[in-house]
Each structure stands twice: as C-alpha cells, then as structure tokens.
C-alpha cells in the first residue's frame, strides 16, 4: 500500500534489474535475422554532391539513398518544422549529414564498404559561427538572410524609457555547444512485419518517430509502429534525433524487405548528433541616476545549424526566459535562429532557457559590480512576484517563493558572511543565481497541439495497467506514474503495470519532454485513477480514459506570443563557492547549495536525484565541457577529449525544497527535470568572477580561460560599455 504523503520515497521499480545488469537496452537485443546498417555522411560542411562512387558491392549488400524512397514518399523528417532531409540530395549543409545507408548481413563488411564509398564534392565556403551565419559568409542558404526564424516581444515602452535614461549600457553574453553524453549511445532497429514496420529504438518520444518517418514511405503513422526500449539517458538528445537514425532504417528495411539495425559507437555519436544551441545575447540596458534598471532590451541569437527542425520552439522558450526571475519596467526581446553549416542544434535539458537565464543573471551581476554593489542585493530589487507581468504580457499565476528559497540557500551556504569576507579578487568567491522554468508546452499548446490522452485498465485480478506514451530514460517516470495511480487507488504499487510504450497499443499522451510528464500526464493518470476508484472493487475488467483540458481564463496567442506562456513555473536558487589557485588558475568548488520549488514532490528521492544530476550537468556546461566547432567539424569526438564531470570534480550538494503545491498538477506537483539544470552555471561564473576579480561573459570556462581572464581580463568593477 502506498500510504501517507506521496512525497515519501519508494524504491524505484527499475533499480534492482538495472543494478544486476539484467535490464535490456536496445543494443542488448540480438535482432538476429536483421541486416546491419551504417550511415555514409557528408565529410564537408557545405557543398554540392557531384558524384557518389561505390566500391564493388557483394551480393546482399546495398547502398541506399534518397533515390530509394518509393514514389509518393517524401524525403524529409518532420520535427516540428519539416525541413530536415532524411538523405542529402544534391547539396550538403553540415558535416555528418546523412547521404546514404550501407546495409548488408555482415557487420564488418558493411563497415568496410562504407569506408570505401567516395563522394565527389564541389566544396563551398561554410558559415560556422553565429556571426558568420548572420554575415551570410559564403552566401545565404536559408531565406536569403540565414535567419531560420525570429520573434519579437515587447512589454511597456522601451524607447521612451531609453530616451529618459541616465545611462544606457550594452553587453554581450555567450554560451557554447554542449554534448548530451547520455551513457547509452543512439541505436535502433526497423523490421518489416506484414503490411507495417516495427521500430525498436532508444528514444524519448515514440509517436514523434512514427509521425516523422512514415511520410518517407507515404504511409500513415500507424504503419510504423514504434516500441521504445529502456533508454540509457537522453536529456533531449533522443527527443527528435532518433528520427534521423530511424528514417534511413525504414527506407532500407523497405528496400531490403528485411530488418535493419544500427548502433552508434561513441565517436560516431558525438560527431554526428545534435547539441545544445550556442547562444549570443546582446543586452542594452537603461539605468537611472541611482543605477536602477528602467528598461532592458535583448537580442537573442541561437546557432541553429543547417536545418530548423525544432529550433524555433527552442528560441521561443529562450526569449520567454530572458527576463529570468525578474520584473523590469520595460522589456523588449528580439530572437533570431541563425542558419549555419553545423550539425543542427536541438533539444537539450532546458530547451533554450538555460542560455538566456545564464545571460540575464550574468548581466545583472556585472551591472551591480560596476556600481560596487553585491550582485545579490541588486537582483533582489527586481524579483518577480505573483500577479506581475511576464515577458509575454501574461501574469505570474502562482505564488513565487524566491524569498523563502533564498533564505534556505543563504543559511545553508553562510552566504552573507562569505560574500562579505571574500573580497573581489581574493581567490575565494561565492556566487548565487535565480532561475525558473515554465512547465509543459507553451501557452495552450498542451490542448491545441498535444491533446494528450491516457488510459487506465483494470484487470480481473486487481492489477491496473497505465497506457500512455511516456518513456523511462532515467528520470524515474516508471516509478512516478504507478505511484500516483497506486496512491489514488490505495493499492500496492506492484499491482500497477507500466510498460515501455508501443505506439500500436497506447494512446498518444505526448512527448516525454518539456518537463511535462509528471505535471500533465501525471494529472491525467491521477484523474483516471479517481474515475476508476469507485468502480475498482465492483467491476472486473474495464478501462477509463482521460484527456487534457487547459484551465480557462489564461489566454495565449501563438501567433503573437502574447499572454500566459506558462501556468506553472518551477523556481530555483543556487549558490556555489569556489577557490582559485593563484598559480595554476585551477578552480576548486567548495560547496553547492540549491533550493527548488517543484510544487509538491511526488517522490523526494527521485527529485533529489534529478537536482543532483541537473545541477552537475549545468556546472559542466559552465566550466569544462568544451565542444568546439572548427571549419564545420566538431573538435571533441570522444569521452577523452569531451570531459564531463566525474565523482571527484564537485563536492556533495546541499539540496533543499520549498512546499508550494501547484493547482493543476497531480498532488500539487510541477515540472522540474529541466529546471534543475538552469541555474548552476550562472552561480558558478558569479563565484569565479568574484574570486578572480574579473568580469566573465562567456562559457564554457576551462582552466586555461580562467588563466586568460586572470592575466588579461577586465576588472570586475570596470564600467560596462555605454552606448549613451
């Protein structure tokens, strides 16, 4: 029986099997009769394909390209936008673009043949960085200006405020690529069965795959059944990207009339998969004579890469979050998704929000420091509250508990004393950041676009099965959702069945993304269980179904981006303390403390684990996770040269929560999987810049960059460039 408070931790249902090595991931299946596939990809960032020269092909082996798409089929993948081609045709836009797939029965032979394919290119000049994309280096290749997408938000009257301002300062904040490094690399298998195909994949969103790749064969999505296999980490990297893996497999399986399987090794995965969008945010901020902010204008540029795919939505979220946890009297934001000749950027925990949150936090620190004010004291002036206007002219619906969270973090970290005692440039520093994350799809998207449905089925023996399309990728949803159902029905959690989704037998409850699973699908299951409860003891075998309904009275216009962007935000405060070695510039992190508002927690230990992992991933992004792209090629292609945090890099975290039940969530829960990523990098950079006494405006920050700032950086108290 699940009794008492639902927050009380239970054992994860998958923990023992995973610990014993018994859980099967996709590459653990033999798929014995299937052929092997390996992708042939572009080796240049931009150019025309003149010719493809194949080696002599043994019987049973074949090289499959766009020409093998049957009549009526479309050579594209639907990933919100429908512009990413499954196979390159005449031109290539980035290194790693799929040109074809080599298939055949023997793995080594397929690899050998793949290596012998020679592509003749007419090479063109690539645009790799945001600046090169905007300058249309080599000539524009998207929309005549390399702008994939753009948007504008306006609150108040920025022009009038600038006209009256005492001073206007401008500053640019930049962030780099980040690689997901899910421990399990991408892999999938596609098998023809009768009049349909079955795809087995390591993936977050099985229905996304069906809908994205079925047009390749001009068949309806129900003819491409997707069965998700336990997924060894994803973080957004398996949200849309599995479409890029599964599309060629589907076309190949159709041609060969046999199953085709493909598993990436690490180097292949790092070199040829999506990353977090690099960003460049330019602020123009108006100040009155006392140094108070009267207006803030921001230009947000994200490096989208060769194809748009999901990036407009990422950019939107970035722009909505650029004012952070603050209310400024006048705000204007313009966002641009810039086309470049890099691998398309895509979802990564936070989905565009971390970049702008980092930018605004850092910019505020700098404005405070140039005035000699403690950044925390300055930020406190602008904390947003319930009922305040958001960047989209909506209101904050819920109670904002930042003051309470701040108190927890200050107490735990001894912030006040340390901030006072650690003089700027002393080698010691403590930093603090504030952040939020709008839960679920923007505005009324859950109702207008996703239309999530779930079913709950009761069997005669008393067991209950949850039917929905949510996936387990490590976040604990296989435990969270049965826990919700069991709690309502007052039955043991062991009586609740929740299997990996199969698109032919579960309703579409939407993607496992956007911190929506607990908040939205959890509520659907809670409601279904409440409907089931009065019938549970009386009836033997029956199903109840629930659909998402958006609360009335919170309008949103997706064309103008005006209104209530999110009803439930998660909120966070994070403090980080560092020490810098004055000779080597090496940074030791001495402490990490965070407090989060995730509503009422469904399972405190699972949420604790999410905080630990998200905060650490954010620290990696802000410090030593360097992913460079030179001339269109990623320079870090293995786990030896792309470094992620180990158990030795950071100390044990202090983890705190506040209780703030969310009106429309299951048992008061809100989304939190992405929130916990969003703030640690800003706190870390705040701490480091105070410790070295220099202004830092770019991440990542590996040791050599710290040294560079120490030797040549701008003093932390220096004035920021004035435009008037």
């Amino acid at each position, binding site marked *: 029986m699940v009794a008492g408070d639902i927050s009380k931790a239970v054992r994860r249902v998958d923990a023992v099997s*995973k610990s014993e090595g018994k859980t099967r991931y996709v590459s653990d299946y033999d798929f014995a009769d299937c052929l092997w596939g390996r992708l042939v990809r572009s080796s240049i960032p931009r150019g025309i394909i003149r010719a493809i020269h194949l080696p002599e092909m043994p019987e049973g082996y074949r090289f499959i390209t766009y020409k093998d798409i049957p009549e009526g089929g479309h050579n594209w993948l639907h990933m919100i936008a429908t512009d990413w081609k499954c196979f390159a045709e005449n031109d290539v836009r980035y290194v790693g673009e799929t040109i074809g797939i080599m298939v055949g029965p023997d793995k080594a032979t397929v690899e050998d043949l793949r290596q012998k394919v020679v592509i003749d290119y007419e090479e063109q000049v690539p645009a790799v960085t945001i600046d090169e994309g905007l300058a249309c280096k080599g000539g524009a290749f998207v929309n005549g200006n390399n702008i994939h997408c753009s948007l504008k938000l306006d609150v108040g009257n920025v022009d009038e405020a600038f006209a009256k301002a005492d001073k206007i300062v401008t500053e640019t904040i930049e962030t780099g690529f980040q690689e997901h490094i899910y*421990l399990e690399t991408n892999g999938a298998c596609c098998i023809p069965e009768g009049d349909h195909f079955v795809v087995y994949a390591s993936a977050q969103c099985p229905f996304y795959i069906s809908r994205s790749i079925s047009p390749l064969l001009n068949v309806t999505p129900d003819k491409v059944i997707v069965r998700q296999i336990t997924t060894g980490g994803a973080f957004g990297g398996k949200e849309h990207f599995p479409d890029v893996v599964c599309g060629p497999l589907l076309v190949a399986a159709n041609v060969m009339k046999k199953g085709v399987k493909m598993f990436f090794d690490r180097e292949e995965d790092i070199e040829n998969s999506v990353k977090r969008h690099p960003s460049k945010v330019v602020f123009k901020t108006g100040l009155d004579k006392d140094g108070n902010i009267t207006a803030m204008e921001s230009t947000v540029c994200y490096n989208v890469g060769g194809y748009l795919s999901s990036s407009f939505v990422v950019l939107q979220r970035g722009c909505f979050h650029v004012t952070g946890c603050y209310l400024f009297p006048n705000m204007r934001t313009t966002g641009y998704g810039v086309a470049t000749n890099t691998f398309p950027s895509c979802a990564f925990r936070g989905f565009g929000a971390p970049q702008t949150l980092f930018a605004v936090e850092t910019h505020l620190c700098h404005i405070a420091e140039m005035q000699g004010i403690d950044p925390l004291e300055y930020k406190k002036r602008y904390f947003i509250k319930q009922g305040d206007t958001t960047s989209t002219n909506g209101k904050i619906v819920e109670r904002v508990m930042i003051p309470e969270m701040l108190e927890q973090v200050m107490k735990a970290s001894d912030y006040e004393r340390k901030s006072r005692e650690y003089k700027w440039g002393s080698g010691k520093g403590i930093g603090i950041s504030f952040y939020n994350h709008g839960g679920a799809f923007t505005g009324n998207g859950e109702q207008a676009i996703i239309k999530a449905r779930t079913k709950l089925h009761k069997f005669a023996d008393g067991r209950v099965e949850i039917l929905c399309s949510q996936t387990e990728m490590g976040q604990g949803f296989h435990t969270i959702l049965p826990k919700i159902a069991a709690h309502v029905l007052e039955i043991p959690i062991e009586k609740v069945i929740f299997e990996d989704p199969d698109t032919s037998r579960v309703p579409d409850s939407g993607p496992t993304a956007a911190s929506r699973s607990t908040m939205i699908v959890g509520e659907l299951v809670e409601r279904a269980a409440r409907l089931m409860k009065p019938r549970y003891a009386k009836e033997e075998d029956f199903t109840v179904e629930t659909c998402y309904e958006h609360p009335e009275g919170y309008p949103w216009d997706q064309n103008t981006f005006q209104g209530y962007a999110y009803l439930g935000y998660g909120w966070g405060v994070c403090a980080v303390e560092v020490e810098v070695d004055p000779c080597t510039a090496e940074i030791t992190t001495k402490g990490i403390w965070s407090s989060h508002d995730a509503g009422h927690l469904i399972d405190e230990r699972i949420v*604790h684990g999410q905080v630990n992992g998200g905060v650490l991933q954010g620290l990696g992004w802000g410090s030593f996770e360097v992913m460079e792209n030179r001339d269109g090629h990623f320079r870090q292609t293995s786990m030896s040269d792309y470094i992620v945090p180990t158990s030795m890099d950071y100390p044990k975290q202090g983890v705190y929560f506040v209780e703030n039940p969310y009106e429309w969530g299951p048992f008061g829960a809100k989304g939190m999987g992405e929130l916990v990523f969003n703030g640690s990098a800003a706190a870390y950079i705040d701490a480091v810049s105070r410790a070295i006494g220099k202004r830092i405006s770019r991440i990542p920050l590996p040791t050599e960059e710290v040294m560079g700032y120490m030797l040549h950086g701008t003093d932390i108290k220096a004035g920021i460039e004035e435009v008037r």
Partner: protein
Amino acid sequence: MDMKICFKLNGKDVSVTTDPLRRLIDVLREDFGCKGVKEGCSEGECGACSIILNGKMVTRCIIPVGAADGQEIMTIEGVSATEKGQTIVQAFADGGAVQCGFCIPGMVIAAYCLLNGNPDPTEDEIRLGISGNICRCTGYDLIVESIRLAAKRGGDIWKK
C-alpha cells in the same frame, strides 16, 4: 586465425574458439550473453564496461580476448549473484543510486572492488573509488551514499 581461449567466467571454466584480437567485451556479450557489460565509450574512459580481472577492476574491457586466456573474470552477472553483490544491489535500490542505469553495472563492480579492499570507506575514498566510472544522470551523490549504505549493511562480509 582463430584460437582456443580458456578462462574462468563468473566461477565457471569456459572456452571459446575465436579470433584472439576480438574485443573481450564483444566475446562476453555475444558469445557468453553477458549483456550487463555495457559499451559506453569504446575507449576505456567511462567505466560502463567494467569487469573484474583476477580480482581487480579493469575499466578497459576493450582489451583483446586473447589477453583473457588463463585468467579469471567476473562480470556483473557473477558479482550480483554473490552475497556481497546483492548487498550493493539492494543498497543502490534503497539509496536512489539508479537513474538511467547504463553506468550502474560498472558502478556496482567499482563499489564491490572498493569495499573488498576497504570495508569502511570515507566519502572521499568512495568518490575516488568510482572516479573511473562516468554517470551523466545522478550527479554521483546518491551513488556515494548508497555505497556507504552497502558498507554499513554488509559489515563483516567485506572483511571476508
């Protein structure tokens, strides 16, 4: 050229006739069904493929199978069947150490080797003991606590 290679796997004498240059991880997974041995990085950097070779953890399972001839190998399948292994597995489940799980068999092996040599490790010693195993989900804290729990629960079994 194929060779007959004999070794002890999880306490049993086994042999395989194969190319001695094949990677040990492939032989363990494909010929002996030890699917708990995970391939994370293919270069011995992440620790997902950790096994125990002659009583010592090797995070480089990417070694040729020929090198295993005459040696003694334990994989997660063997370790988790022991009392010590189960102590760790249960502590991992109770302590919240597991998320996506892909690194976890390697982590269990690392914990097993650590506790065998040091039955009552400090937090720093645990962090050092698992430093060759990358986890991208958990931030390590609950893995560290779970290993401490396994040490406490196991008590004297770690001294055997």
